[in-house]
């Protein structure tokens, strides 16, 4: 994909981007990626007023980028337009918070039980909807006391670092523990450096400066590791996508170059384990009983261009049957599905995925992305899990045996 200013020159106006846009599929008035991206981009360079509320409705799923036969960086153009887009006060305030999930989590850490309770009270949610435009129909994930950084001991295969991201840090620190066990099982010592939000929510909410600040903080903590050859792993596909592709464009000069170097040290956990498996150092074990697991590939996994490593990894687990869903975007897109004015749209986008899940009748749905899992549970009532949980469980069972 061209990520420079010439990307706009690659557009042949074929509209294939529009054919894969999840928003266009359910909202006929949405102008679509071709209009909001390359078409308006030429006008933006010209200096014509191009702002439109519709840019807020881009999911940032990158499907348009992947569908483009000419490598136009469509969604980056829309993201840039988001950054200069003007919103009414209520949405501006709300999106300010949504751009800073790490800050929200820090509030929750003070007293997670109280925090969770209040977010589950109907009157609170109604008030939040009225005042802040956060949909009262959308359940919030439960917050915990959080995850502490840890340093790595010695290990035969050396050191890896784990970037947990906001969700694992604030809501599911148990997943981090499982990641550590899996990697230790492979012979690595695992370090969890102090990091902050990857910046995806900031970009999605038009807060480019905040995203750049987050990128600088993360770079400061991660670049030394990358520079000393330590692989940095993520278990969240959106964090992985951002760490691999997002930082260098937000930063300038030397920092941008360092961000590129960091990017080449970033691995999706599945990608890393698949390589370990391919080189014979790792294999899934057996799970007692039989289960059918449906697998949903998050959009931000697809945008990493690494195939679907978890499908093969899950297939290694004896007793697990994997059913890849291949039914499009879930519609959640991080904070998008929480927004009062976008909730309905988000659910309509997810409809074909929900229907497919019902058709498949799997016991659970595995997906690497936390908000995809939230949406699937909300839309279908089916239990969801991160694929690493199954793998870790199989290893744990094996070692108990």
């Amino acid at each position, binding site marked *: 994909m061209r990520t420079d*200013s*010439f990307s*706009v*020159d*690659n*557009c*042949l*106006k*074929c509209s294939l981007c529009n054919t894969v846009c999840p928003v266009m599929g359910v909202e006929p008035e949405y*102008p679509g990626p*071709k*209009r909001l991206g390359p*078409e*308006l*981009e*030429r*006008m933006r*360079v*010209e*200096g*014509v*007023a*191009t*702002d*439109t509320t519709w840019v807020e409705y881009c999911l940032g799923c990158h499907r348009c980028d992947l569908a483009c036969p*000419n490598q136009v960086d469509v969604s980056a153009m829309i993201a840039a337009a988001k950054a200069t887009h003007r919103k009414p006060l209520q949405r501006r305030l709300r999106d300010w918070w949504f751009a800073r999930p790490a800050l929200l989590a820090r509030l929750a850490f003070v007293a997670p039980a109280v925090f969770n309770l209040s977010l589950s009270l109907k009157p609170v949610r109604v008030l939040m909807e009225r005042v802040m435009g956060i949909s009262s129909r959308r359940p919030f994930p439960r917050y915990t006391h959080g995850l502490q950084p840890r340093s790595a001991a010695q290990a035969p295969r050396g050191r890896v670092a784990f970037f947990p991201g906001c969700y694992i840090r604030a809501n599911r620190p148990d997943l981090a523990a499982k990641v550590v066990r899996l990697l230790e099982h492979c012979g690595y010592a695992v370090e969890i450096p102090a990091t902050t939000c990857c910046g995806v929510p900031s970009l999605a909410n038009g807060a480019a400066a905040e995203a750049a600040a987050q990128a600088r903080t993360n770079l400061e903590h991660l670049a030394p590791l990358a520079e000393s050859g330590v692989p940095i792993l993520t278990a969240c596909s959106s964090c992985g996508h951002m760490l691999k592709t997002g930082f260098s464009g937000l930063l300038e000069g030397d920092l941008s170059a360092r961000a590129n170097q960091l990017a080449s040290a970033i691995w999706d956990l599945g990608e890393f384990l698949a390589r370990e498996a391919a080189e014979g150092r790792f294999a899934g074990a057996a799970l007692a009983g039989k289960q059918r697991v449906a697998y949903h590939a998050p959009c931000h996994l697809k945008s990493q261009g690494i195939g679907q490593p978890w499908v093969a990894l899950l297939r290694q687990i004896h007793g697990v049957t994997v059913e890849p869903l291949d039914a499009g975007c879930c519609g959640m897109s991080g904070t998008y599905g929480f927004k009062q004015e976008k909730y309905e749209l988000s659910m309509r986008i997810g409809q074909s995925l929900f229907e497919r899940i019902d058709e498949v009748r799997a016991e659970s749905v595995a997906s690497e992305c936390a908000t995809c899992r939230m949406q699937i549970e909300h839309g279908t009532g089916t239990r969801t899990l991160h694929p690493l949980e199954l793998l870790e469980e199989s290893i744990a069972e094996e070692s108990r045996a």
Partner: protein
Amino acid sequence: MDSTQVVIIGGGATGAGLLWDLSLRGIAAVLLEQQDLANGATGRCHGLLHSGGRYAVKDPEAAAECIAENRILKRIAPHCVEDCGGLFVQCQGDDPAFFEEWWRAASTLGIPSSRLSAEAARALEPNLAPDLLGAFTTPDAHVDVFRLVQANMEAALARGGRVRTYAQVRKIEVVRGRVQSVRFCDTRTGEEHQVRCEIVVNAAGGWAREAAALAGVDVPLRCDKGTLLVLNHRLSGRVLNRCRKAGDGDILVPAGPVCILGTSSVTVPGPDGLTCTAEEIQDLLNLGEVMVPALAEARVMRAFAGVRPLYIRSGAAQEAGRQVSRGFVLLDHGERDGVHGFISVLGGKLTTYRLMAARAADAVAAQLGVQVQCSTDTVPLRAEEPACASGLLPEAALEKLVVRRGADAPRIVEAIRHQPVLAEMVCECELVSRAELDFILGPDAPLPASTLADVGRRTRLGFGPCQGTFCGFRAMLAGFQDHRWSAEEAVAQLHAYIENRRKGQLPIPEGKQLDQMAMGSDIYGLDPGLEPEVQPIALAGGDHVR
């Protein structure tokens, strides 16, 4: 027989400007254009509104005219001018003595300029070469040539002037040494017409020699071809000139969403049958890259060529293209050739079109005994832009519509209110709505369009990367639905249009535009087989190549 006081031959900037000038003086005039407006040099240039900087050293007289006209046009036609400013860029290897000479000349002429360091220039224009030495600022600007000609014609029409396009002059009747009437043919219908008049003004640009011959007069003219390239997006926000003795490939003009690189200078036999070769295009790019290295990567969308009609003053016939003064000439054929009532206005450049028109109008007024002075330097070409209802079109589309259509914009927006389906963007690259297209094709348009290419000149439809592949089809369908064309005529329109658009794309180098064209061939089942590298493509005189 129809009659008027003055017949103007040629619908370029000069002819249109003259029609407006005469209308302001209350002189009845008919403009006859053999094709459509701005078909010749006017429609085939950069659209650079010179500050005079380019001529400051070599031709101070022309430079002084330029800076004066630059100021006037920005005042009277703001909707046609994008006042983007310009830079004279000092490139590595260019003569530093010339920079100083330029600086002195510019200040003598009163061309406002300031010196920029290399860093400051690059901060303004990041695509400039990293090794540039510095730059001077100028008040150069871009003028939309099609809009300018339309604006002059429309303003004149509102004051009683008349315009006939596709009207080819066949004979200028001269009786006893005095012009009596003009016979012309409507090339669409083949009908012959005649209009009686007192004065004929030959403003036929590159065709001035042919036009003069129709009155039995010879006007020595040399045609100097310039080739220009249209790039898909703006590589600079300002007009970039290389600060050196004027040469090829050293001007880059931002023009709406695109930018235009030019130009070359080659003597050709006449204004018809111009060709652009792949070599010329590559030469232009190579030269341009010295100043703007990004040209190596940018998508060339189109190549076109126009002629500078240069009047050969006696004795100067042998001089090379750029040496002949770009200043203009007014010939009174009564004095010169004994054909009274016949005037030729020749040479000149786009920037000074108004001045040329004013001088020609002075001569006309003197012959007719009209005392009214020229006022085109103070009367705006268009009234204040009207307010339009918002929310019916996207913001960018509305902005473009208002600039293009002026006082007609509100009724176009109202049409959308009544029929929301008319908000469809027929041309997505230039944001031309169906409502605007219907207006342009319809009876209320001040200058009705006959062909899809005419629609393009009035709206910029088809001027974007698809080069008419998508919008041409939608526009054709609109013409059918509006009962302008039968299905058969509509298809013939489209074929002619696509063929015409392809001519400007064929000679350009490998790259995205060829992919774009291949897609068009697949859609319309056209022969994809022309090998662009080997075949110079004739740009026939009748083609509108922008």
